[in-house]
């Protein structure tokens, strides 16, 4: 499973206004405006892609409404009602307008508006991805630092291989093996699904996040059961972000450890532990934030496969189910939402980087 996010798109260089005092404020303002324009254009491009995909589908959307035995007159009338006789640019504008109003069409398989379906399934994905990224950061960052500070040792080699495994193990395979091992053989965790049927519906969905909801309701049994279900898929997902984060942390740390100030600190007799964690680690925090953000966005992609394996009622499962039912509105809606969240997180970590790193201002 490749969870390496596709390198954040560098923002276009903006003209720097002359003049000093006024310049700085203006520059920051135009920087923010520039990013917002890029974000808006990217979203428009995303809409163009989903619109295009919706158009090249070999399935005639009219036929799916009227059936293939409808007389030509009925066919034409429905085609007109659906607005499919209008020129493509007009249809695209209408599509953009609909999406901006939250209208993603109706799902053929569930019979509900796609946007309602998506808002119902999204928290499940969010919950899993969040625990996944926490696992990834908690293990990946120390692993990267250790690898870099023991460069060339067997420990470093082992961590490098773990990092590369993150690029070469299929997520769905790891999920299956995890289920066979930890659920079927060892009985350490619960099986597929978000919660045992016995506990289903006991807790009112306030946030949609099972862990939070059960705590709000004060029902610890439900909480424990939800954790049992969540821990395996989140760990599998976490493995992929761990691999990427460890790899990047190692590379950042190696950069820092070869700098002269590190040598200076060592010459001054600063203990190695302090050299690593206080001197070398601090400067990589800023790029790490970006890496973590990108990795978090990448987990959305990974969740598609993991959710299918674990019957996790999230957006990935919704997408694959829709794909198999040829439910195009649901497919495009889910694609759009995943794409939008992906772009949003990418741009947010890009902006955060600019805010945190004085050199990027």
């Amino acid at each position, binding site marked *: 499973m490749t969870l390496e996010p596709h390198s954040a798109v560098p923002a276009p260089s903006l003209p720097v206004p002359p003049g000093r005092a006024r310049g700085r404020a203006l520059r920051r303002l135009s920087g923010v405006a520039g990013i917002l324009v890029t974000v808006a254009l990217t979203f428009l491009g995303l809409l163009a892609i989903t619109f295009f995909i919706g158009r090249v589908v070999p399935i005639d959307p009219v036929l799916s409404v009227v059936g293939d035995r409808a007389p030509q007159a009925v066919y034409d009338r429905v085609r007109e009602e659906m607005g499919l006789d209008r020129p493509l640019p007009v249809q695209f504008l209408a599509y953009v307008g609909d999406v901006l109003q939250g209208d993603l069409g109706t799902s053929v398989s569930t019979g509900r508006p796609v946007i309602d379906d998506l808002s119902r399934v999204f928290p499940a994905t969010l919950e899993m991805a969040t625990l996944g990224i926490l696992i990834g950061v908690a293990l990946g960052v120390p692993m990267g630092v250790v690898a870099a500070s023991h460069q060339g040792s067997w420990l470093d080699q082992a961590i490098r291989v773990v990092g590369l495994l993150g690029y070469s*193990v299929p997520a769905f395979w790891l999920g299956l*093996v995890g289920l066979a091992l930890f659920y079927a053989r060892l009985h350490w965790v619960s099986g597929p699904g978000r919660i045992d049927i016995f506990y289903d519906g006991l807790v009112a969905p306030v946030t949609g996040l099972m862990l939070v909801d059960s705590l709000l309701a004060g029902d610890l049994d439900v909480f424990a059961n939800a954790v049992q279900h969540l821990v395996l898929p989140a760990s599998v997902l976490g493995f992929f972000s761990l691999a990427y984060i460890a790899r990047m942390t190692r590379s950042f740390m190696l950069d820092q450890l070869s700098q002269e100030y590190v040598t200076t600190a060592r010459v001054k007799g600063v203990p190695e532990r302090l050299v690593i964690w206080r001197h070398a680690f601090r400067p990589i925090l800023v790029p790490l934030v970006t890496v973590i953000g990108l990795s978090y966005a990448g987990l959305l992609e990974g969740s598609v496969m993991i959710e299918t394996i674990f019957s996790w009622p999230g957006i990935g499962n919704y997408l694959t189910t829709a794909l198999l039912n040829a439910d195009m509105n649901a497919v495009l809606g889910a694609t759009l939402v995943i794409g939008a969240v992906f772009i949003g997180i990418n741009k947010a970590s890009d902006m955060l980087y600019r805010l945190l790193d004085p050199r990027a201002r």
Partner: protein
Amino acid sequence: MAFSRDWLLEDSPGSRLQARLGRLYRVLLALGRNPLAVIGAAIVLALILAALAAPLLATHSPTAQNLSARLTPPGGAYWMGTDELGRDIYSRVIYGAQITLAIVLLVAVIAAPVGLIVGAVAGYFGGWIDRILMGITDIFLSMPKLILALAFVAALGPGIENAIIAIAIATWPGYARIARAETLTFRNSEFIAAVELQGASPFRVIALHILPLCTSSMIIRVTLDMAGIILTAAGLGFIGLGAQPPLPEWGAMISRGRAFILDQWWVATMPGFAIIAVSLGFCFLGDGLRDVLDPKHGEKG
């Protein structure tokens, strides 16, 4: 003594062929010093061999069913066991190498040239051409690859050809970005100006003088991307949108084994090992190639 070591390593080669072979030899020598790269190259070679010699290596037919031997554990006549129709998993994995190799090669053959040309044209001409081409590239880049491929397969319909097209659509933008960056680094150099002053058309400059210089970074990137392409293809196969049964595609095989994972673990597990080995092989080889061809990255990575 035409192909002796000295002839290959000569500092002032007498012909273009000698210079090229010499460079290749040096790259291979450097690769040979990196154990992981050697392992990677061996795995990739094994994949190619398995694909070419599948009928010789396989012990059974990949599609012949033998219901009396269904779900046999690994060992004896069936090295990796059999699946729910009694087909030999080892033979299917071997034949699956053909499919994987075909997918990987076709995606590379479609996506790399498209990305190369888009990037080189954008970098060479600059201005509004650059802005439009890179704008489109960035939109594709801003989407998760798997999701993009899934959406396109949904539109095109399931099947291995459509899966290849969809993966290629999701893959080319990365190459366009690299080709543009490379082009920009020598866009204003003197040898380009010299060719232009001789009256070479933009087409000629790009095709003969810019594209060849982009190839080494492209080779690195394509090799490193192979793992991702294999995983995406297997993922599409797993969901049921890629290669269709009875093709022995690894992802689709895992999908079939899903129903038996709790008791007959080998059905789903064995093809997974093949995917991991081949993807790791490409990663190792790509890492090694990067160290050799791109000294900027040096010991890091």
